[in-house]
């Protein structure tokens, strides 16, 4: 290649003179002549020799006439509109694609002023645009791709920054890849692909070393020499390496470079080696090992994010809400780990497109099915079996993924010796189907259906079941590379049912149901290099039937009763601007306006002010007709965050986040349970509101292999719902008389260190945090703990976790998981007394004491089948032991009066080591 000759010359320091031009004038004309032919003719005319790569000239034709012009002018004319530059050396004319060869070396190239002559303008340019391409294309690692040049070098251009945009898709399926980060190695720029795989990144003139990053995909290093705006589409392959790694990570560089604070991505595939109870791979359980996300204990279904209550998390599965994403009352999550692509958690700055919950958003996305060939994955564990199939419908266009998981716990129960358990029943299953269709390059349609069901019969006379159902459809459209839109519809249902049949007159069938239907339109538009806008609107209609009880059987004379239906409409508009103020400062300015209407038909009690709300203090009952507005609430929600780079891989981030919640979960228990009731804001129940400020430092070491972060937050919450002691929430027509609304505050500092590469990888997190609640009122009966702040049920100040994985070789790896937490607060008896002829206890102020600290160690070994290509299926065996130390972690402590005497009990859920073998296969 001629270019190489030239570079050889340049590198070895031949000093060039300015182009020798003999001033010969040439007259020549071309009529739709191929450029190559034109140049050859010019060669003849001028006597100069041209050096070029034929490929550069293809497809260029010229129609131009030159009369008595010098060679330079003619060349300028001929090459106008192409990306080719030229360089004249004596009578040799060297053509270059994109690059410009500087006739002199940069100053001080040899460490001294060899060349005195300066051309100020050009020298300035050499600083930003490197001349020598090869110098940077070093160490050709196999993922590296050859240099791409974009735009044409123009010595007269003053622009220093250009926009590179394009689409990134999977090499195998051509599916767009979302959330892939593209960043400049050692530089400042950073971009993430959107749902359709598009990205846009502002890059400085000249050589840019780009790298892509997404867990589960091979890392691609792409060197780009940029001379103008342009587009670059990449196809990347799935990574095979990822099988062996335990990585739970933010988008690698994103942890330093993104503007949002408190964001975490968990890739479903990557968690498969983390040892977990009974072999169930569980995204939500892994989430709890990260700073800021806790549960009240094993077997508690809710999550507490940064001091928020369990009802303050929005769980979204493919754009529809899932209300109770757990099985077995909280022991396992109901999210199928095989069909889930990733889980994105926002615990501080929540993007303004989401709303309706105070503390966090768990955004889960299902994989798109393989569009090329049938493939599948499955696992067999001690409790469940799981099978996922990916079926192409139209090759490269449409596919279906379906996942089914079911338990065979019934069989285990029946095999137990205990007489009382033999007749009991406990089972669950969940199923998901997702259809994806790439209509064309700019339109994509997906639809998801999900259903989960749990059923228990503990005593012979009762049967309890609950289920989640959701369906969603989404259409993504690109108008052009700069703008696009997504329209989605979602429908979700949560319901439970209790049947009690003991052949008595109180046999009943109790049912609860909550429905939510929503639509959302979101648009994005890249205004220019510095402003990227997203905006949209959405609306949700809630309908709940808080309780219906019916008699069961002939003997029963239970009165049929239905608590009146509640309806509410929550709507919102939002806009956000990702504003790159300069290379260091990136702002994410988001604003959401949400508006809620409690809707009739309904009767609402109006209570007298200043006295406890009770049946006696009702002034009047207000009736509302169908769709009549009961009360409206609303407000602006600020979602602002920013990043300031303190160095190449060191940044400071801060955020302010305001959220409003109109739907509340009522529970009389210290932890969440499936029989809790969701209640809408109405005349008497205010929405909950929260403000959070957060600040964090993020630093990466060793080529981003080690990530460190420290984040602090302070959160204030208003109108949190609590309840009076002994409140009766089920089938209560006047719920507000049992409820209290109070304030909460939470603060904490979270430390996370991650190692993402190498044989040894994993992460370590430590959090110090507090979560406090105050229930104060002028009325003593409505005070708790004299109106002072007290620790919430899930307040666990110290929380440490360590997750590690060591790969011995390609097939064997070992992993461990260590957790330590302060014991949760409980209300403990402070004395006893005799009442109604039996001993009873009197309790302390609420949550005055704590149960003992919690700690647990889990170990696991993962053995892969061999990696022969032609094998029918790839297998993977996971052997793990949960709670290796056999620590008897108390989950709860309670006091029972038996035979008139008080007895104290403590319960632990997994008090002994629990070994498990799970077999996984993939084809």
């Amino acid at each position: 290649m001629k270019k190489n000759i030239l570079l050889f010359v340049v590198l070895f320091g031949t000093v060039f003179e300015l182009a020798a031009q003999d001033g010969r004038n040439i007259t020549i004309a071309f009529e739709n002549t191929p450029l190559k032919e034109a140049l050859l003719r010019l060669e003849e005319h001028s006597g100069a020799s041209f050096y070029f790569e034929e490929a550069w000239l293809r497809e260029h034709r010229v129609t131009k006439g030159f009369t008595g012009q010098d060679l330079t002018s003619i060349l300028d004319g001929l090459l106008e509109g192409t990306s080719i530059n030229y360089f004249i050396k004596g009578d040799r004319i060297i053509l270059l694609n994109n690059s410009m060869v500087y006739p002199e070396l940069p100053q001080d190239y040899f460490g001294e002023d060899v060349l005195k002559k300066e051309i100020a303008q050009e020298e300035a340019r050499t600083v930003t645009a490197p001349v020598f391409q090869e110098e940077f294309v070093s160490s050709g690692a196999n993922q590296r791709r050859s240099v791409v040049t974009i735009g044409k070098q123009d010595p007269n251009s003053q622009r220093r920054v250009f926009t590179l945009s394009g689409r990134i898709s999977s090499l195998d399926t051509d599916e767009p890849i979302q959330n892939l980060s593209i960043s400049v190695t050692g530089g400042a720029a950073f971009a993430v692909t959107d749902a359709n795989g598009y990205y846009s990144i502002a890059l400085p003139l000249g050589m840019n070393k780009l790298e892509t990053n997404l867990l589960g995909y091979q890392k691609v290093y792409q060197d780009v020499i940029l001379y103008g705006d342009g587009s670059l589409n990449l196809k990347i392959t799935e990574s095979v390496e990822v099988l062996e790694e335990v990585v739970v990570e933010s988008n690698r560089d994103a942890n330093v470079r993104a503007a949002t604070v408190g964001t975490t991505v968990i890739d479903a595939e990557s968690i498969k080696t983390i040892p977990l109870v009974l072999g169930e791979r569980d995204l939500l359980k892994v989430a709890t090992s990260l700073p800021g996300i806790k549960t009240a204990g094993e077997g508690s279904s809710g999550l507490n994010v940064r001091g928020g209550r369990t009802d303050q998390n929005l769980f979204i599965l493919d754009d529809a809400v899932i209300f109770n994403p757990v099985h077995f009352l909280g022991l396992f999550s109901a999210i199928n780990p095989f069909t889930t692509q990733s889980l994105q958690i926002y615990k501080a700055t929540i993007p303004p497109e989401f709303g309706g919950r105070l503390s966090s958003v768990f955004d889960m996305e299902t994989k798109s099915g393989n569009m090329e060939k049938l493939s599948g994955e499955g696992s067999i564990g001690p409790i469940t079996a799981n099978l996922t199939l990916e079926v192409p419908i139209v090759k490269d266009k449409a596919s279906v993924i379906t996942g089914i998981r079911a338990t065979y716990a019934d069989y285990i129960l029946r095999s137990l010796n205990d007489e009382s358990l033999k007749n009991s029943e406990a089972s669950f299953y969940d199923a998901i189907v997702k259809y994806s269709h790439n209509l064309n390059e700019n339109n994509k349609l997906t639809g998801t259906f999900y259903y989960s069901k749990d059923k228990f019969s503990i005593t012979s006379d009762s049967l309890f079941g609950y289920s989640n159902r959701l369906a969603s459809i989404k259409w993504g459209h690109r108008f052009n590379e700069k703008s696009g839109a997504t329209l989605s519809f979602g429908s979700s249902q949560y319901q439970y049912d209790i049947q009690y049949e003991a052949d008595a007159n109180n046999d009943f069938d109790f049912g609860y149901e909550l429905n939510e239907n929503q639509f959302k339109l979101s648009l994005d538009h890249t205004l220019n290099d510095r402003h990227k806008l997203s905006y949209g609107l959405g609306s949700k209609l809630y309908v709940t039937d808080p309780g219906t009880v019916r008699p069961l059987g002939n003997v029963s004379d239970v009165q049929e009763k239905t608590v009146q239906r509640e309806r509410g409409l929550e709507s919102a508009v939002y806009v956000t601007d990702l504003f790159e103020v300069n290379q260091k400062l990136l702002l994410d300015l988001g604003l959401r306006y949400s508006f809620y209407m409690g809707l009739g038909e309904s009767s609402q009690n109006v209570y007298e002010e200043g006295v406890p709300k009770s049946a006696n203090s009702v002034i009047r009952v207000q009736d509302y007709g169908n769709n009549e507005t009961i009360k409206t609430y609303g407000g602006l929600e600020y979602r602002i965050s920013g990043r300031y780079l303190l160095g190449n891989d060191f940044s400071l981030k801060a955020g302010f986040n305001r959220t409003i919640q109109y739907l509340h979960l009522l529970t009389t228990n210290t932890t969440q349970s499936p029989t809790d009731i969701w209640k809408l804001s109405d005349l008497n129940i205010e929405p909950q509101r929260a403000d959070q400020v957060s600040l964090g430092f993020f630093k990466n070491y060793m080529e981003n292999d080690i990530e460190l972060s420290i984040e602090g937050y302070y959160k204030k919450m208003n109108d949190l719902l609590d309840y009076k002691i002994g409140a009766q929430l089920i089938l209560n027509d006047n719920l507000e008389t049992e409820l209290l609304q109070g304030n909460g505050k939470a603060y904490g500092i979270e430390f996370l260190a991650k190692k993402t590469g190498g044989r040894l990888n994993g992460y370590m997190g430590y959090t110090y945090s507090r979560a406090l609640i105050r229930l104060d009122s002028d009325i003593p009966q409505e005070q708790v703990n004299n109106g002072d702040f007290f620790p919430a049920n899930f307040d666990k100040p110290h929380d440490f976790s360590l997750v590690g994985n060591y790969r011995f070789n390609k097939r064997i790896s070992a992993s461990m998981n260590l957790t330590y937490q302060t014991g949760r607060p409980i209300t403990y008896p402070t004395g006893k007394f005799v009442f109604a002829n039996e001993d009873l206890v009197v309790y302390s102020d609420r949550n005055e004491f704590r149960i003992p600290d919690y700690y647990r160690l889990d170990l696991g070994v993962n053995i892969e089948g061999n990696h022969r290509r032609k094998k029918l299926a790839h297998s993977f065996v996971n052997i793990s032991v949960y709670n290796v130390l056999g620590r008897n972690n108390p989950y709860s402590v309670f006091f029972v009066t038996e035979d008139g005497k008080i007895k104290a009990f403590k319960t632990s859920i997994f008090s002994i080591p629990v070994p498990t073998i799970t077999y996984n296969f993939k084809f």
Partner: protein
Amino acid sequence: MKKIDNILFHFLFLLPMACTEPFPIQTITFENILVVESTITDEMKHQVVKLSRTIPLDSFGQEVEENADVKVEDSNGNTFGFSENAATGNYISDQEFSAVPGVAYTLKVRTQDGNTYTSAAVEVQRATPMDRVYAELISNNGEEGIQVFVDTDNTEENAQYFRYEYEETYKVQLPTVAKFDWEILNFSDFTRAYDLELTPIEWEDQRVCYPSVKSAGVIQASAANLDEKRIFRFPLRFIGKKSPIIRNRYSILVKQYLQSEQAFTFYQILEDLGNVESLLSQGQPGYVTGNVTSETNSEEKVLGFFEASSVSSQRIYFNYQDFGLELPPYFVVCEQLAFENELPEILKRKLELEHYQVYFVEEEGIMRTVYITQSECSECDTFSTNIKPDFWED
């Protein structure tokens, strides 16, 4: 719908790894709180107010509040004074009176430390008599036994909440009868030898005892969620078919108190907090506000409820033969030991420490054989009385 909560969550026992174990209670901090328990009824009688104090968790018994000034005032301006009964520690009204519908009653207490307490004004609701108390042989979770049921055909619209108390009285035929008082004389620490002096007891018919046991705990039934406001087949008391209390004739007196909603809720919460059964989702315990408050210090905790209630009662009798059951065993396995002449140390221990009684002595010349057995097998006084109650019908 408390049942809804209770049905759930036993399920964790399903997992063999889950475990619930008892542990010794320790007092972390102790709060001394006045406890008030009083139900005045529509019966013309000496009404009772019980005052006590909370005690530390690791102590036993009951600390009665002494020397308090107790009275009940009604809305007609009458005041009924109460005096402390030295035997029971309860405060008994000086005169008999009954709660009358339409009149509001208020309890006033001044404790010996000078603090004053007052209750909310309460009224008695019109009586709804119990319809029927009856017993049936049933199978309860696999165990056969006799279930005592209550039916109340309600006529009053507002009467929906009921609280029950019962008192069981049953006949006990002693296998043997203690006939001698004993005394240990001349015990030598060195030889461990002693003399046993026996004195025959002057006794009447001591072979039959009539123990009475009161119900413990709050037993409640609500008709609030039922179509017809009646209580039907309310299971009050279950007695297993092998229970010794039905070895001879058995009787149960059931008292039904009609409660206000507030009183019902208070008792129910107290009872619920004493029976936090669910493992996974524990109910939130805490201090339960009753209707008695401190006038001296409004922040002071007071536990208790003063209620006025109409009461109805009914007594039934039955024998195990009525249900075709086999003779249940005695309370304990009666051990009958005989000691010929020698007086080993074990005899002394049985008598002194294990409360054995001498029920028979055989004397042949210088040979003396002493027969002993447990006091539960030979003496009414240790667990009941030999006096036949006035109401008893054989």
